[in-house]
């Protein structure tokens, strides 16, 4: 059956309460003429006045003033969990596309070799690089450091990071990922979700303990059961629904929306009206948590 | 032969240049080199000689390409290409005024520009054009109007070592006797072109002649 709807009808009814937020600025707006403040991201100094350079909300931390844009390319920080794709195998390093401003770098010395061995990298390893990770492979990694030009250096020196095998990836705006203590969540519904700070979300079936500890170099290519697939698909659609409605993504919000969606067929979740319904049911539950 | 006049070193960006006027015909040539050459055109044991010919009106077509080829071959014979392996010598020729005996003027101005640029040469070349008119008379350095009515147009290029022929370009029909007559006449007058080169360089390089 084909589902047809008019384009205009899909337009969300404008919420009536679009009252303007008080500390909202647009590029060129003067934030303050007080010279006692420090210039943060999204601002610039001219004529001793602090101006905004992006459109967004002013944030103040002590003396530091930043403007956070609604939507922007991923701006990496040390300790972030990211999901990226290998795009180039080079001399002792891989280039990884993390949807950042510049390609990220994964040094051969910052990965755990198969089997979790800790030893010096030999020439052999250098030649074997393509056997570990080749172009097109997806990895999860942590940001180790940021170079002066803004490029990220990654590492996978923990067994939870490494190559990703079977699952699904979703790209959302990086600003929708809520910063939490952990970005790896094993959900009770039987799936694992990685909420990468760079806006990439990875959903896969939960593995048993032993295979998870290999660092992912041996890909488990066993067929995933239909039940697991359905759970993954449902989660994916829920994440899309949340991002479509500009809701922050974290374990609770994903889980709640998942629970709310159980009433519907997996494929129906993406229908705009159902999406809205799920979100409208999720929102009060999150608010009642008192976040 | 018509009056010859040259101006050297008028342009600032190239390594050597000459503006040569033979009669009303006028050509400017610039030379770059020896300089870098694009990898795909690089020759391992000698310099790559490239000629760009720019006509005054319109876009370059087949005729211009052929013209470039003739001049390129002549210049390559003259230049000591083995002295500059893996480098390029670029010659750019700009039409200023075509009033007959045009090819000769282009080649002569290229030779002067190469001299001005100080590119190592095996010898110098001088080009002379002559025309056989309908009465069978030979006219040296014809103008464009004479060229239109003529029977055959011949351009000879000689070297100054042993006055052997470097290039011949002819158009129209003529007998072999006429060809020989033309050759000897042009050879004779080519000496004057060489004389002109010599005088021009003497003037350029001398100190005492410094007027101004």
């Amino acid at each position, binding site marked *: 059956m084909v589902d047809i709807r008019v384009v205009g009808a899909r337009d969300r009814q404008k919420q009536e309460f679009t009252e303007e937020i008080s500390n909202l600025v647009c590029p060129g707006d003067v934030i303050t003429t007080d010279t006692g403040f420090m210039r943060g991201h999204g601002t610039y100094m001219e004529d001793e006045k602090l101006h905004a350079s992006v459109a967004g909300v002013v944030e103040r931390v002590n003396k530091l003033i930043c403007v956070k844009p609604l939507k922007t390319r991923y701006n990496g920080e040390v300790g972030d969990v990211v999901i990226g794709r290998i795009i180039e195998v080079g001399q002792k390093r891989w280039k990884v596309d993390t949807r950042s401003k510049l390609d990220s770098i994964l040094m051969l010395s910052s990965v755990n070799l198969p089997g979790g061995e800790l030893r010096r990298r030999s020439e052999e390893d250098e030649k074997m690089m393509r056997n570990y990770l080749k172009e097109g492979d997806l990895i999860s990694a942590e940001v180790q450091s940021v170079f002066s030009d803004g490029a990220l250096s990654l590492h996978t020196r923990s067994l939870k990071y490494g190559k990703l095998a079977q699952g699904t990836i979703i790209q959302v705006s990086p600003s929708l990922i809520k910063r939490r203590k952990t970005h790896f969540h094993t959900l009770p519904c039987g799936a694992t979700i990685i909420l990468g700070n760079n806006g990439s979300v990875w959903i896969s079936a939960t593995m048993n303990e032993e295979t998870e500890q290999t660092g992912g170099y041996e890909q488990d290519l066993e067929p995933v059961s239909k039940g697991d697939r359905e759970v993954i698909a449902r989660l994916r659609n829920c994440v899309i629904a949340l991002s479509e409605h500009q809701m922050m993504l974290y374990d609770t919000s994903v889980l709640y929306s998942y629970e709310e969606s159980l009433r519907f067929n997996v494929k129906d979740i993406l229908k705009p009206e159902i999406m809205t319904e799920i979100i409208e049911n999720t929102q009060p539950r999150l608010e009642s948590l008192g976040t | 032969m018509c009056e010859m006049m040259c101006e050297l070193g008028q342009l600032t*960006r190239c390594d050597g240049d000459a503006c040569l006027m033979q009669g009303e015909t006028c050509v400017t040539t*610039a030379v770059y080199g020896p300089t870098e050459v694009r990898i795909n055109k690089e020759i391992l044991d000698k310099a790559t000689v490239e000629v760009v010919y*720019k006509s005054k009106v319109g876009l370059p077509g087949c005729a211009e390409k052929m013209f470039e080829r003739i001049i390129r071959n002549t210049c390559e014979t003259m230049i000591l290409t083995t002295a500059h392996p893996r480098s390029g010598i670029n010659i*750019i020729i*700009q039409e*200023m005024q075509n009033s007959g005996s045009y090819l000769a003027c282009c080649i002569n101005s290229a030779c002067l520009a190469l001299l001005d640029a100080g590119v190592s040469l095996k010898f110098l070349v001088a080009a002379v054009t002559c025309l056989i008119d309908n009465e069978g008379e030979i006219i040296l350095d014809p103008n464009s109007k004479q060229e239109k009515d003529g029977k055959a147009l011949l351009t000879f290029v000689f070297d100054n070592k042993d006055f052997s022929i470097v290039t011949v370009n002819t158009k129209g029909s003529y007998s072999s006797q006429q060809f020989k007559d033309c050759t000897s006449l042009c050879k004779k007058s080519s000496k004057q072109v060489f004389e*002109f080169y010599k005088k021009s360089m003497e003037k350029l390089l001398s100190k005492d002649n410094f007027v101004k």
Partner: protein
Amino acid sequence: MRETPLSNCEREFIRKALGERKRLDGRQAYDYRTLKIAFGYDRGCCRVDLGQTRVLAQVSCEITSPKQQRPSDGVLFVNVELSPMASPVFEVGRMSDQGVEINRILERCLKESRCVDTESLCIIAGEKVWQIRVDVHVMNHDGNLIDCSSIAAITALAHFRRPDVTVDGTDVIVHTIEEKDPLPLSVHHMPICVSFSFYEQGKFLLVDPSDKEEKVMDGKMVIGMNKHREICSLQVTGQMLLLKDQVLRCSNIAVVKVTEITEWIQKALENDRQARSNGERFGFREAVVMDTVTTNQMNPEKLK
């Protein structure tokens, strides 16, 4: 070949000198370099030297069919060639951004200001019109190509004569020079481009920047104007921020410069006209200064 960048100390030196109101060649900020105009043997051919910058322009014409939207208007076509002769950076064939920029400025300056009466170029409406083609060849690049090219283009247009035609029913007879005197184009006014380069965010401005000054500048403003003080084209290029007053100041300077240059062009045209009508010799050779070491002349003896 890639452009050799200006060395940092040269850059610094030029900037610093500009701060002290000094230019490398000793000119004042609003001075032009010496302008020389020489005409070729053919009609519509001229060579313009602006200091060391040299440009050759040739106007030609042919009969074509008019554009559909304007069946009774002739066509004016401008083509700028950045020859590798002018600078090793210029390549043959491919049109660089700089080439497009100069070409468009000239096109806008000459075509859109309607300095040439295109209606008079119509032979048979909707069928046959004259296409006037201006080819501008840059021969030496020492900065300010735009001004030099615009002077060359408009001078060549004013110098050009097209053959006379007679229309006989649907036949068009083109007369040779011998049969009928060729006709000049009706040039209503002469738009001339004046370039200003800006430094230190518009604090300093220079007229007629040389190549090195162009390499250091923040941005450039080109004003095309005729002697009736009508602005025919105006354009700001480069990454700089200007205020309205700066634009007006430039347009005031342009008025003076355009008047001077127009007079100079008229004088050159008049000299050439006299030489031609008095039967004196004309062509590029007349522009050669003989008493320098770089020139030579020889009258070969008659052979045979």
